[in-house]
């Protein structure tokens, strides 16, 4: 009785607490995400250069400058290269690892923990580790090749402009394959046992079982992994910043987020940097909005 009265007394105050805290979250995200994006667009339309802010709106000058900037196109090409090579290779390797682990492997969780390990490391850490791997004079890969008598294959790796981007891609596949594996493995495990047994009764086994029954049923996982990797291929920053800083030869591994950072914070071309950021934002949204629409439409 007593308790009931107390809770009724604080009912109005009580309602406000939750709504107040929720409102804080909405306002914070509203300000730092939505106002931030709008503000960034405004900066991109201005002529702000140097450390003193200028909101003198000059229109699309910066966007026109973008179209004549070879560094912008080099960066965009490298982002596209990530999407075209890094994404499918990671998906393929992830699926392969998931299938291997699906063979009733002993100590499965140990293998899973190890394969996922690189993904849980900071890009700064993996960037440092791979700088050591690729170091041409004393690094891991070249000295290993020497030890096993394959000196022919020694290379400049990240110091060679023609190879650097592929080195970046290989390291990123190394870091993300475990993550793709995890998504695929969860997809495979969510298929009802009866479906697989029915297919086995029909004589499907091994490779055929995966090709005909299991892979077609993990479309949703594939889609999720695909979108997340595509978004990463656009957003990647930390790893390349540490590994190559966008070089060698100036822009061999330059990507849009890196160009944006350099233009804005190193050269204080705030308006131009914001323009690159706006383009990057639009590219990411072109992938994310259809994904969110198809995922949450029914809920």
């Amino acid at each position, binding site marked *: 009785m007593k308790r009931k009265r107390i809770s009724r007394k604080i009912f109005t105050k009580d309602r406000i607490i939750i709504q107040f805290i929720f409102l804080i979250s909405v306002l914070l*995200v509203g300000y730092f995400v939505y106002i931030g*994006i709008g503000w960034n667009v405004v900066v991109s339309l201005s002529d702000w250069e140097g450390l003193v802010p200028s909101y003198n709106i000059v229109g699309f000058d910066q966007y026109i400058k973008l179209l004549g900037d070879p560094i912008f196109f080099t960066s965009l090409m490298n982002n596209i290269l990530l999407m075209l090579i890094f994404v499918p290779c990671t998906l393929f390797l992830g699926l392969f690892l998931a299938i291997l682990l699906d063979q009733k492997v002993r100590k499965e969780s140990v293998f899973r923990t190890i394969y996922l390990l690189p993904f*849980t490391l900071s890009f700064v850490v993996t960037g440092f580790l791979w700088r050591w791997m690729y170091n041409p004079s004393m690094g891991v890969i070249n*000295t290993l090749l020497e030890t096993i008598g394959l000196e022919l294959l020694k290379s400049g790796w990240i110091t060679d402009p023609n190879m650097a981007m592929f080195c970046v891609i290989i390291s990123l596949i190394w870091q993300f394959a475990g993550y793709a594996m995890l998504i695929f493995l969860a997809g495979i495990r969510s298929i009802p046992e009866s479906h697989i047994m029915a297919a086995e009764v029909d004589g499907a086994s091994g490779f055929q079982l995966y090709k005909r029954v299991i892979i077609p049923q993990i479309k949703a996982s594939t889609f999720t992994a695909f979108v997340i990797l595509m978004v990463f291929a656009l*957003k990647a920053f930390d790893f390349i910043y540490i590994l190559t800083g966008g070089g060698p030869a100036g822009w061999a591994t330059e990507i849009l987020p890196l160009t944006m950072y350099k233009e804005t914070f190193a050269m204080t071309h705030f308006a131009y940097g*914001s323009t690159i950021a706006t383009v990057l934002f639009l590219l990411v949204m072109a992938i994310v909005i259809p994904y969110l629409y198809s995922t949450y439409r029914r809920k």
Partner: protein
Amino acid sequence: MRFLRFKRVILYILLIFFVIVTLLPLWAGIMTAFKTEADLIYTTPLEPPSSPTTEPLEKTFIIMQRPLQNSLIFTSVATILSCFLGSIAGYTLTKIKFKGSNTVFLGLIIGIFIPYQAVLVPLVMTMVSWGLYNTVWGLILTHTVYGIPICTLLFRSFYVGIPDSLINAAKTDGAGTWIIYRRIILPLSLMPFVVASVFQFTNIWNDFLFGLVLSRGTEAMPASVALANLKGGFVAMWNLQMAGTLWYTLPALIVYLILGKYLIKGFMTGAVKG
């Protein structure tokens, strides 16, 4: 039968091959962190040190100590705050029906995917004008705000599974939303709180971009930025570079090895990185 066994052997050879490839960079890093400068020249990176030394670790600890403390402070506080706010948001969006709640949810979780470059200039300007630039508080606020979207998603996907009948029963007993949250939702939330906090701790600890643009000098500098600076400070001194890497990665590595299964749960709930 024999053929089957042959297949199993191939399977394990492949699995172990991938384990070696996965661990190779880490192995080289750890071995190098314990080498003297002479060892650096006379042993290959994959060989263990001939005379192991902790000198690189001691030297880099002097530089990394303050940044590691900073990282530990803002990571812990921002983890707690973003989980708490995410929990309230997840609760509001699933159990307190209001008009347009779905739109608000979608509006919140877009924050997971945006490239942070698109908000970086306004963020830095805001932090400068609020007097939070180059402070640990600024990093706490930033990581809390950008953690809210993913935490909301994690908690919402868990709270959807709590039956509404439980909430309605409490309502007829006269309990308000706060009482329901404290007496019913919170006691059931241990799992999502563990998942979200392990996930957030790892994410915030691993961050580099925000630390890079929001700190200058050592007062608020995160360990990730301090490590990046070692690159220029110790050119070609790979034992020191790897020792610094080891210091920075150790806390996140320990969390992963002990609480990895919760982190995996976090990744499964539509998680992202980068």
